[in-house]
């Protein structure tokens, strides 16, 4: 019996000592191969008497199973160690920077973002978007909007004109998006609810003015729309746009040729260290002009001011962008400085919506 015990401890020691897969296989062949020590013992079983076999059989088979098990276990641990060694050798420096993806580098201009925000809000209120050409006629930009002949806005120092045509008539670059309102009223039957965002132009260039800027106007025409509705729309818009719980607005009577009554609207804010906050403080900041559409304008559009009525408003997109997002100066909006766009621009997937919030 001692020979079996010593054989087993000898074999198990060899398994344990095998340093790699090849050595382990050598041990396996020496023990369990065709001429292996254990295989030889197994062969002797056939020569034994049944009584002897009954006694020796389990002993030799047990030896075989244990050696086999030890080899398997050793193989697994060797494989594990080899893998660990390989993985250790494959180590990378994870602090190396990766390239930024295109969607991380790209930017949407703040004007685009703000127009999308405005569209989301007014779209929910049932407004559609009306657009028109930048090159307009004097009739649509001024006459139809009740600007009298000789009004200073019609002069070369306020408005960009194109070269006169053969009849001496000269087109101009629209000074507001109001011609779009006229086009809308002339082609659509009330009820009308549109906003008109777009590029506008005035002959002006200084610290706070650029010769091109962006405006959004709104127009509501039906049989009952009045100043009370106008106030509601503007208050709701300002709350939604500036993303504040409440705003305090002040409607000051004012004058525009195309509305009567007319008002300018101030919004209450605080200014601390150059930062403007709405819904608090006691400064007033003018943000838009509005009023009931002038009866002369309705008539110019073929509408009867005793039958239909409505209101309009207009505000600077660039300006409200500056107020909301804190750009101190208007001029860089049009300079395409990558550093400015990277800082003030928006990521491509920052898509404003009312359900998800205008800003994340």
């Amino acid at each position, binding site marked *: 019996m001692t020979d079996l015990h010593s054989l087993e401890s000898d074999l198990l020691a060899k398994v344990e000592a095998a340093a790699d897969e090849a050595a382990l296989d050598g041990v396996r062949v020496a023990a369990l191969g065709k001429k292996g020590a254990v295989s030889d013992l197994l062969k002797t079983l056939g020569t034994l008497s049944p009584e002897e076999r009954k006694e020796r059989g389990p002993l030799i088979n047990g030896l075989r199973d244990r050696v086999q098990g030890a080899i398997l276990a050793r193989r697994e641990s060797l494989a594990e160690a080899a893998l660990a060694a390989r993985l250790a050798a494959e180590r990378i420096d994870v602090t190396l920077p990766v390239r930024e993806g295109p*969607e991380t580098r790209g930017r949407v201009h703040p004007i685009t973002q703000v127009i999308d925000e405005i569209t989301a809000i007014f779209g929910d209120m049932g407004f559609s978007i009306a657009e028109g050409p930048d090159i307009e006629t004097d009739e649509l930009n001024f006459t139809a909007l009740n600007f009298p002949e000789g009004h200073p806005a019609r002069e070369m120092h306020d408005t960009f004109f194109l070269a006169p045509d053969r009849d001496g008539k000269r087109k101009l670059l629209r000074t507001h998006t109001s011609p779009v309102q006229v086009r809308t009223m002339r082609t659509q039957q009330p009820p009308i609810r549109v906003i008109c965002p777009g590029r506008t132009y005035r002959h002006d260039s200084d610290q706070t003015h650029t010769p091109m800027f962006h405006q959004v106007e709104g127009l509501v025409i039906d049989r009952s729309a009045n100043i009370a509705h106008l106030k509601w729309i503007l208050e709701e818009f300002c709350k939604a746009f500036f993303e504040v719980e409440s705003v305090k607005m002040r409607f000051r009577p004012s004058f525009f040729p195309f509305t*009567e009554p007319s008002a*300018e609207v101030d919004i209450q804010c605080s200014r601390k260290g150059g930062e403007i906050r709405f819904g608090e403080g006691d400064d007033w900041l003018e943000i838009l002009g509005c009023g*009931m559409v002038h009866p002369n304008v309705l008539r110019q559009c073929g509408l009867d001011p005793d039958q239909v009525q409505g209101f309009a408003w207009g505000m600077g997109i660039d300006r409200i962008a500056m107020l909301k997002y804190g750009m101190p100066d208007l001029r860089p909006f049009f300079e*395409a400085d990558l550093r400015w766009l990277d800082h003030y621009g928006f990521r491509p997937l920052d898509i404003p919506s009312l359900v998800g919030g205008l800003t994340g």
Partner: protein
Amino acid sequence: MKFTLSWLKDHLDTDASLGTIVETLTRIGLEVERVEDKAADLAAYRIAAVLTAEQHPNADRLRVCTVETGDGAPPVQVVCGAPNARAGMKSVFAPPGTYVPGKDITLSVGTIRGVESRGMLCSGAELGLSDDHDGILDLPADAPVGEAYAAYAGLDDPVIEINLTPNRPDCTSIHGIARDLAAAGLGSLKREPLPPVRGEGACPVSVDLAFAAEDRHLCPLFGLRLVRGVRNGPSPDWLQRRLRAIGLRPINALVDITNYITFDRGRPLHVFDAAKVTGNLTVRRARVGEEVVALDGRTYRLDEGVVVIADAAGVESIAGIMGGEHSGCDETTTDVLIESALWDPRTIAQTGRRLGIITDARYRFERGVDPAFTLPGLDLATRMVTELCGGIPTQASVAGEMPDTDRVIDFPWTEVRRLSGLDLPRPEMKVTLESLGFHVAGSGDRVKVLPPSWRPDVEGKADLVEEIVRIAGLDRIDPKPLPRIEATVIRPVLTVLQRRTRLAKRELAARGLVEAVTWSFIAKDEARAFGGGRPDLALANPIAADLSDMRPSLLPGLLRAAQRNADRGYGDVALFEVGQCFASDQPEGQSMRAAAIRRGTARFAGAGRHWDGAAQAVDAFEAKADALALLTALGVPTGGLQVVAGGPDYFHPGRSGTLQFGPKNPIGHFGEVHPRVLKTLDVKGPVVAFEIVLDALPLPKHRPTKVKPPAKLSEFQPVSRDFAFVVGRDVAAGDILKAAQAAERTLIAGVEVFDVYEGAGIGSDQKSVAVAVRLQPVDRTLTDAEIEAVSARIVAEVSRKTGATLRG
């Protein structure tokens, strides 16, 4: 428009505070721009007596003073640097804690060269009252110690400046402003009777309104009166103080009176020195080339657009804007002609703009002066002249007549609620109109309203609503929700183009491009380089020479922007713009485009050097990829899209392509920008670009349902076969792909080019294009024979269409 509080109270009987008045003005549409209240600003500054002034022990130029500040307080020690500081003088003292406007500092107790100083003796400059830095204010000996300096100096009359809208000529007058405030409930308007002046004898100077019939509106009414025997010196203190307070310089009594009435009543006047007027006056259009030296000392060259007042010697005054220097009044004037006339607002505005003259008279006449006050204004001026300067007036000489401004507005009271949503009691509305000077006739639901002569802006019902509502206060209108037109979930409102415009910006940004917004106008040579520069798209009055022409393309603006960034050290630029371009001055000539440029190594995958591999310079395929990605994102059906070589002449002729749906429907271009064009724009290249006209894109197919066709997912393994075709160098790879694809309609699931080779082993005018064809069996695994058959058809088809041979 500026006025002082005390001046306002000449016309308004009120005990309202300054704050209430200011708030009310803004509330009723007379927006207060600024209030200057020196009494409040300078409240801490008191009159003080300098008791002693000793030499500072440690500084030659400083004195140590003890100052008595009044109210029995113990004297205060003050270190003072003023050369005129001396014992016994009266000056102005500010205690610690006081803000000093002239220095923009707040005083604190200080130690100056070792001596404590508890306050400051002040100069006029430090108080922000003058430019006098020479020394501290030196007040008369009887100045009362301890009293507020502002009150003592007569600076305690707050100045209010309102930003007047152009429709309110009546409020170019303090009387008019008082009327509005009285209507708003802030006291009552003082209406002192203005009895007519009975002059002695006829005015010796007559006036001829020398106008053709169609020009009579240029001067409908002209009143003139001579006052003989006046003494013209400085006007009285109270008058000078008021004029100074609103920023006017007192000249002499006669001139000051006209300025006073201009503000007091909104009635501009002119005074001529009668001794310098030759013969009678004629009011007429100026003659081309006539000149006048005006009261500002400048010579103006006139033409027929200008209306003048002339005498036998020539032009004496630019009507309604500025008098002439020659006949102006000075201290030697003894006989004065006072003019009160009516002028056409438009002509005054045009003349003023053309001559570049801004005066208080122009400001009023171009808005519309109350015609009914023309002659009462003349009488008021006459009375002031005789009161302040003595003299005996003649009767007035009047030419023309008062224009009829009467109009009646048929006004249903319900109009107020209809337009404003505000329900006001009828008596309140009536009182408002009447206190503003409107005459309301009749009773019941509809009344007749007659606007006053000073309100040329009021034309109809809406104007009356504005009057009533602004006085009631817009804040009384409660916001009311605007109901939806239909009680439904909101339907999509964007047009296809609007949707595509929005999406284009997001897609291009997602490709690593940065959105620019550049000017719609560009330089003429830039416009020409991009197919523009048409005369009908040139601005008549550009704001700058390089912003002169409407852009025909977005590319010039982007290219210039790229170079500006490169000049700042950012050479790898990837910019896009989505915006309008112009092919004519008609609405149809305007198109919405999307364009992008890439410069340097600004590739889609990233720019610049990187440990993982440096980016190569951009090439035309980067621009092509941007363009095609955009089309895909916009949902443009690309089945019929063709990519053909070549583009407009601002692209590299061999490295550009045109995207089109057939030769007649190009939608855009891509490629390297032509080096010559880059040179014109002063841009260093290479730069690649694409531009697509969004309006030109085919509309998405309208489908009755949103159901997608069923997905056909084969159970069988696809098979790939590679072919290397040798073709002529000019053969387009696109043609090889098309031919291969066409060889077998059902099995070929895709064809890719995986290698293009030119060089050793093939002919010098040839190239090898290697394509991989993917076969997707539909109902069973393909046999080798079947695969061979398809392969043979592919080779045959490509060879037939392109002359290709298989590379050996």
